[in-house]
């Protein structure tokens, strides 16, 4: 199950942050997202370590914690997508698929003429679409 998704702008400014848990651990999830930004920076600026995945938008597993796994994605426009999941057994294809759909949702959201570039995404349609994508991720992982 995905517990948190985040869109982070190119200056590491949060554009969208949404957690999907009942429990009161929002702050902790946000903290995890914050920490993962450093990992992304490290990967992007020292590409040698990552080898074959050089310059790919999909950054893969950023880091595993005890309870969570964090995945990242970096667009050409230097916008980062991050999600935190509690699933310990995640298929790579599922994650890629998730990010692909998430990316299109994001592109549609920022193409809205009323969206101010660099500001938080407030579109309700985007929020709905994201929660659908998040829910379907859980489904495909279970199936």
């Amino acid at each position, binding site marked *: 199950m995905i517990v948190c998704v985040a869109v982070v702008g190119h200056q590491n400014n949060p554009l969208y942050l949404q957690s999907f848990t009942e429990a009161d651990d929002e702050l902790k999830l946000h903290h995890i997202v914050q920490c993962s930004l450093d990992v992304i920076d490290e990967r992007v600026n020292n590409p040698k370590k990552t080898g*074959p995945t050089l310059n*790919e*938008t999909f950054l893969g597993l950023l880091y595993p914690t005890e309870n969570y796994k964090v995945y990242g994605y970096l667009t050409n426009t230097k916008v980062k997508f991050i999600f935190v999941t509690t699933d310990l057994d995640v298929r790579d294809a599922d994650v890629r698929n998730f990010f692909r759909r998430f990316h299109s949702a994001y592109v549609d959201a920022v193409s809205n003429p009323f969206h101010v570039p660099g500001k938080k995404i407030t579109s309700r349609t985007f929020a709905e679409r994201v929660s659908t994508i998040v829910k379907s991720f859980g489904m495909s992982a279970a199936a």
Partner: protein
Amino acid sequence: MGREVSESCVDSVIIEMVSAYCNRFYVNKPDLAARRIEAIGYQVGLQLSESYTRILLVARYTMERPRFSDHLEAIKFICKDFWSELFKKQIDNLKTNHRGTFVLQDNRFRWLTRMSSDPSTANTDSSQDPSVATAENKSTQATSMHLYFPCGIIRGALSNLGIPCAVSADISNLPACELQLSVCFSITCMITR
């Protein structure tokens, strides 16, 4: 190549926008009008680059190199993919001094193909100008007004790709009823690294 209805609509919208800013909102303040038009282009460029890089990503999904590694790569994206999405053609010539300045030359800039330097038309939409020289000057100015929007688009797209820059455009040979007209976009990148 056929011309689609939507294309004519876009042409009309742009012409109308430019004339609204020049002749209605900011009369006698061409600098201000230019800045506003450029700002609109900037936002359009930001959003277009967001979706076009996505298109590129899908189209080349199998290729494992979708992220741009340096400035030249991003400029090439502007010249090839971005330009052909916008104008159905690629940039004709790209020059660079390898120190952050790029010159993009389009020999048949699509948004200006409907423009001509006929002095009589230049006279009708401005107040009466008796001398032909001023009329020509006026039409040059009007044409350059139309170039602020594409400049803004390029600037918006590039800055969204992480390259802050300044873009200017100049027309090499004025369209004298011919279809051939070339526009040079000079891009000066501010290299921060």
